[in-house]
């Protein structure tokens, strides 16, 4: 059987593809508004929306690539990929390239890679592999085994420092564990222990890390930094009122009061220009998108596929929750972008590739019935 069976194409999850196209379209449109300027000096700089289109194209290719082979092949790559990730992460402090004050990149001359992106895939695949092995709820031994495997790379990403990606990996794994379900005893114990452990972890942090955490939870500590962001973001969103100021008319974003308006705070630009009505539509689009991912998890033919989809679900869910929560002023400011809306090269490619995995799972949901 050819890997690109005709049935595979007919079984493509079209609603999910349409939803991605809509979200990405909204993102590019929004970036068009957010990059109000052009540079002079003969060299015109590509505005962000143009670059984002190129990233989107690259992501599309990545997404298609991810559907070309049976997803169960990932079972065999999960471990090697995790080991490779850990090696690459270990290399970062030694030979990493410093960009904007953080060492996150490995430079191989022709190209550079960001090992933390690999960590996302490795955690997703290995998590799905380990969690799908058994059907019962998760006991202590299994829980600790999974944590022992997945925590080191997450920790290595956090110390880079890339708190956003590290948190993303942890939350993705946590979501998958909850998806599998914990035994009643484990769940009850964790319910008590986790809230106690978190403050204990505090003592292991270095002073500057503590300060960063404190700033996270109390913007007033950093009124010129994240505190300023929160205030300006709320002004932008709030002043959009019911119907919005109109496309390209958002004064807060056009006046550049809004910081990072093309990356982490992109959705504030949208909410200012399209108002409550537009913002609700966007939230609805995201909800449908998540619903489709959950549906793929439900419909998958095997547990491994189901857990892969659940992992992708949580990967996006937390990002949407944290980013929009931060922009709306109900979550601490962490550098996490909004999928498909925020500008960003590697994030866009990773997002599309993850969707590719879900498409892979859902297009093969009938395949082995007939095999």
């Amino acid at each position, binding site marked *: 059987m050819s890997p690109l069976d005709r049935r595979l194409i007919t079984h493509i999850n079209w609603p999910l593809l349409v939803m991605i196209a809509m979200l990405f379209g909204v993102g590019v449109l929004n970036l068009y508004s957010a990059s109000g300027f052009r*540079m002079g000096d003969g060299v015109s700089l590509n505005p962000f929306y143009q670059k984002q289109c190129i990233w989107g194209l690259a992501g599309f290719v990545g997404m298609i690539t991810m559907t070309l082979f049976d997803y169960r092949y990932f079972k065999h790559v999960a471990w090697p990929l995790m080991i490779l990730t850990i090696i690459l992460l270990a290399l970062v402090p030694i030979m990493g390239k410093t960009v904007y004050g953080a060492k996150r990149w490995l430079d191989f001359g022709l190209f550079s890679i960001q090992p933390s992106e690999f960590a996302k895939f490795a955690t997703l695949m290995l998590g799905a592999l380990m969690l799908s092995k058994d059907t019962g709820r998760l006991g202590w031994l299994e829980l600790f085994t999974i944590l022992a495997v997945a925590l080191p790379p997450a920790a290595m990403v956090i110390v880079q420092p890339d708190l956003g990606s590290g948190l993303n990996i942890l939350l993705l794994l946590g979501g998958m564990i909850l998806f599998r379900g914990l035994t009643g005893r484990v769940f009850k114990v964790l319910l008590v222990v986790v809230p106690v452990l978190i403050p204990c972890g505090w003592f292991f942090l270095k002073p500057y890390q503590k300060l960063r955490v404190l700033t996270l939870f109390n913007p007033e500590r950093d009124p010129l930094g994240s505190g300023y962001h929160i205030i300006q973001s709320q002004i932008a969103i*709030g002043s959009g009122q019911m119907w919005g100021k109109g496309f390209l008319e958002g004064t807060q974003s056009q006046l550049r009061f809004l910081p990072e308006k093309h990356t982490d705070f992109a959705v504030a630009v949208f909410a200012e220009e399209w108002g409550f009505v537009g913002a609700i539509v966007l939230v609805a689009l995201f909800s449908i998108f998540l619903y489709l991912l959950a549906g793929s998890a439900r419909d998958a033919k095997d547990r491994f596929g189901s857990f892969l989809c659940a992992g992708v679900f949580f990967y996006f869910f937390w990002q949407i929750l944290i980013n929009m929560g931060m922009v709306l002023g109900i979550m601490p400011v962490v550098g996490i972008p909004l999928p498909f809306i925020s500008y960003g090269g590697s994030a866009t490619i990773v997002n599309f590739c993850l969707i590719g995995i879900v498409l892979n799972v859902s297009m093969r949901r009938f395949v082995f019935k007939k095999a």
Partner: protein
Amino acid sequence: MAKTYEPDTGQQSPRGGLILLQSLILGLFCLFTVRLWYLQVHKGEHFAELARENQMRQASIIAARGMILDRNGKPLAINEPSFALGLIREDCEDIQATLRKVSEWTGLDYQVLLDTYIRGKKRSKPFEPMVLISNLSYELLAKIEANAVSWPGLEILIRHKRYYPDGQPLAHVMGYVAEANEEELEKDSRLALGDHVGKQGLELVLEQRLRGEKGLKQIEVDAYGREHDQQVIQEPRTGGNLMLSVDADLQAFCAKQLEGQAGAVVVLQPETGKVLALVSQPTYDNNLFVLGIPPKKWKELRDDPMHPIQNRVSQSVYPPGSTFKLLMAACALSEGMIKTSDTVVCTGSYRVGDHDFHCWKKGGHGSMDMRSALVHSCDVYFYQLGEKLGIDRINRYALQSGFGQPTGIDLPHERSGLIPSTAWKKRRYGENWTRGETLNASIGQGYVQVSPLQLAKFLAALVNGGKVIRPSLVLDDPVDVQSKLTLSDKDREFILKAMADTVQAGTAQKLKRPDAVIGGKTGTAQVVKLQNADIRQKTHEMPYKYRDHAWISTWGQKDGKSYVVVCMLEHGGHGGESAGPVVKAVYDYLFGPAPAAAKTAAKAQPAPETGD
């Protein structure tokens, strides 16, 4: 690659898990809808109002640093306009591309610019330009100005640049300002990247008095971020001007006297402690540092064997040689251990244990009382005096008189010098103090180390009635009496008289002039210990670094004006011979040229004995 897989058995996805996912989606939708409703509909009008107010930006107004003038109002540190390249990050579409462009125009390293940006980002207020490059040359300024228009976010800033019109002669006093470094920025929240702070000298010590307070302005911008109107909310406060006690012309004159030599001259008013001249040679051009000294130039200065950056008046300490005998005399008289008329017979050497301690005069001075011992600088007299006093008594008295500790002048990094004691030696070397070491200390050799400024401060106390006053460079600062010499007026005057006699008939005859009262004490401080005085070579025959340091500490009075002048020449040889002419020139400057008759009279005198 196309493997076939067996389907897993059992339930595909956990039922509870699916319920979890669906509840999470519902929760997310509800949470955001409620929050959006609250922000956009419930509080929408409030935020719309805030958005309208947002069209005002605030920006700092730079305050000028206070000027520094000399006692006659001559400007010593002024502000000149300078141009800097600023970046307003909110206006900048693509920071990295912009910085690359700036790097292209200026030839500065992109990474350096990026680092500057990252550091500045943490410290700049929204819409406040952060300084990327300070002190732009006119050439660079023209280049950037022509290009920057099409690059939003870049702005040419007009700022103040420090300029020291007198440069070299006053470099050690003035110090300099330069851009605040990471540590300074961290310590002082009022500083922004690119701000200048005092780094050395008065600029450093009096930073808080000189630095002004930034003002605040409000700028109204239109929908394109273009400036419409400006309003000053808070005027900047210029830093306070400082008038120094220093006389810039006298300073330059003294510096000229030391040209080509390494040494120090201090001129101060004994009654007030106000410094008129504070010269350290060789020197450097402090203007170099304001713009950021080029590494090559810095390396040259740092590695110069003559150490031009070192302030020899307060940061260098030397054995004081015979000038220390003044303190020995004061100590002995204050303790009442000896009468001025008590005599000692100098045979040219003094034996302690199996070691002979020589007097500088080979044949000996014969019978010496305190006056003649000071005038002729007899070593044997002071050996015996020192033995009587003991090192701890000398130590205590010297500390009371201001030695062994910083003088407190308005200059940074002052050295304490050293007055040894038995306890000190035990602590430092774990050994007992020896008699021979007391003898060495008694003639200002051995462990004893003083700075030229400490000596001047002590001398001022002798002249002004015993008040140990903190030397000060700021004209209007109140006189700060730190302690009092424990010495009766009679004994004090005795020492002053002996110093005057030294000028009349002793080792400091070069200073003699009929129209003024001048007292002095010369000193020659050995740099290397020579076992036997006989093998000592003539100064000019010795390698430079082994030559003695030459000292002369003096006071002079004429027409109610009173001065203390101390001069030290590193490796200058004999005090009277080499340091003497410098101080004589200074008095000629202060009191006017000596009457012609006196000059011939001085010449007629037999050449003074030297060698103290």
